[in-house]
């Protein structure tokens, strides 16, 4: 039988790749996330080679004695995984490009819920301060602004007759 104990060098490379991949995955820029996915995927692919044990002869009956063959299955799985990673990379690239087309950058945007909470807190404050002075229409507009989920821009549209100070904290709340 061939040696099945893990190859330490390979394991070390896997560790480095996975670490770097996870680090990049936590970045905000989509192109770095993309690099992270590639590196992480390659790290896991290498792990399959570790799983296959040491290299032996070509796994063809009649060419290599049975005990000295390489394990062909992990290689087949790695090939499949590489092809899948390639497809995903292409898709992520396209998405990063589209994001750059639309926004001029490829940064992953804020979580919708986070932003809503920040905006709601700010708008609550504004509504509380202005409710006596300004009247019901502005309250409604504030509320409408809070519920505005479609806007991907950082600054919510300011209603025409809202006092400037009412919208100031709302935009301030979005700053990350």
């Amino acid at each position, binding site marked *: 039988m061939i040696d099945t104990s893990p190859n330490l060098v390979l394991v070390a490379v896997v560790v480095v790749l996975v670490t770097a991949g996870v680090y990049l995955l936590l970045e905000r820029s989509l192109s770095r996330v993309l690099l992270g996915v590639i590196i992480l995927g390659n790290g896991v692919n290498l792990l399959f080679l570790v799983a296959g044990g040491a290299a032996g002869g070509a796994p063809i009956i009649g060419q290599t004695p049975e005990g000295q063959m390489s394990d062909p299955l992990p290689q087949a799985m790695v090939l499949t995984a590489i092809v*899948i990673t390639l497809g995903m990379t292409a898709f992520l690239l396209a*998405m990063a490009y589209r994001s750059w087309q*639309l926004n001029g950058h490829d940064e992953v945007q804020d979580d919708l819920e986070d932003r809503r909470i920040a905006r709601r807190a700010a708008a609550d404050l504004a509504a509380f301060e202005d409710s006596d002075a300004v009247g019901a229409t502005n309250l409604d507009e504030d509320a409408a602004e809070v519920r505005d989920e479609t806007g991907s821009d950082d600054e919510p549209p300011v209603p025409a007759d809202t006092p400037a100070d009412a919208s100031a904290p709302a935009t301030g709340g979005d700053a990350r």
Partner: protein
Amino acid sequence: MNVVDLSDLSWVVPLPVVLPLFAAGLALALWRHGRAQGVISVVALSLVLISSVTLLIAADSGPLVLDVGGWAAPVGIDLVADRLSTLMLTVSSAVTLCVLIYSIAQGVEDGDAETPIAIFHPTYLILTAGVSNAFLSGDLFNLYVGFEILLAASYVLITLGGTGERIRAGTIYVVVSLLSSVIFLLAIALVYSATGTVNLAQLGERLPDVDPGIQLVLQLLLLLAFGIKAAIFPLSAWLPDSYPTAPAPVTAVFAGLLTKVGVYAIIRTQTLLFPDGRLDDLLMWAALATMLVGVLGAVAQNDIKRLVSFTLVSHIGYMIFGIALSSEAGLAAAVFYVTHHITVQTALFLVVGLIERRGGSTSLDKLGGLAKIAPVLAILFFVPAMNLAGIPPLSGFLGKAGLLQAGVAQGTPLSYALVGGAVVTSLLTLYAIVKAWNKAFWQTAPDEPAPMRLPRGMVGPAAALVGFGLALTVLAGPLMSFTERAAATLRDPGQYISAVLPDGGRGAGLSDDVAEDAGAGDNP
């Protein structure tokens, strides 16, 4: 040698995977002809539905196994259709067909023969093929491939059209899904190095001999990978943020099916690979947190699409609860609940799409008065909504009652806590749903939406799905006894293993015909 034998239906097993793939290729080639694409898709998915029902009937008398390429089990890849997978397959193909007709009608109504539609049909068919492959796979790596097929298609569908909002939501969805795929792949590599196989049946034989510590690592990794896909708290935050932005039919099919594929994978691996149930307590806690956090999220929402997305998360908790009980009754109720939930959740999302169309918004503050102007829509919303909340006598109630019964039968403090949590979640779901119902249908409309007729092609499939949900209620008796039989099979992995790896020639990994060649090769 391989004469088609009508009594042996294993040749039907690959059809749900192969047919949509062929149809996808055909539809892509005909990208200029929207109408032809529609016909191809509908025909393909109808055939898938027919073959799924055939399999459902055939698999009730024992699992069907097909060795792909004539290579038998441990060496070749096999597709296995047992009671659980055929039930999932049947429900999913019925649901995908309804959603397809709905989306065709929507496309016709909007009059867009433009680019997004050209890729919609092929992508949708590939999604179906991926889902079927995941359900039928008897091999861990093939399960991964099935997941990747359906995920790749879902990436395209969720970013369809490439608007800013969809790219934002798509980024979250894609990155989270990619991470879960990498974790799944990592788990497969470790499983392979621990056992030397990725065949599920053989894993079921070999894993019990593996060191318990390593088993635990493998189990946790697999649960982590599937937990992200199934949106179990704390791995669920991506779902309500990304699903609602997609077009209504896409959201509907994602909500109905994709999370359930994760749940299916959990059921399969927990029962077949790790039947000792060491992580049941962890799953129980996760189920409790999923239910409560999800439903509290739903209560806080003011947008009907997001509200329904949050209820989706919370109801995943019920299924995990049933799995974590790891008793026959619990599993049977969980499988029943999955069946019920696929139909009801998809129907709800389709109806929400209709509400958005009729009322011009999904925000509960801008909607109103729909009960008067669209009474049919009100009925279509009311029935699945009450079904989701678990009002007797609908199937949601029956599923929940089954789960609660199984939980009480377990009798541990934790299972009682879960029973309590499930009841609270059910009530809070009712609260959230009634809030949406009151605001969208009964409050005076802030501004009257323009009068319009809802297209019949969209109302029809939505109504069909609502009716399907009601049929599940009427047929709850036979369905429950079917899921009980399915659970009995699941609780006895030996049955699955011996179906895939019967002794003799197949046990050695070679089909009869291949065995002769290999025998010749051994003695040159």
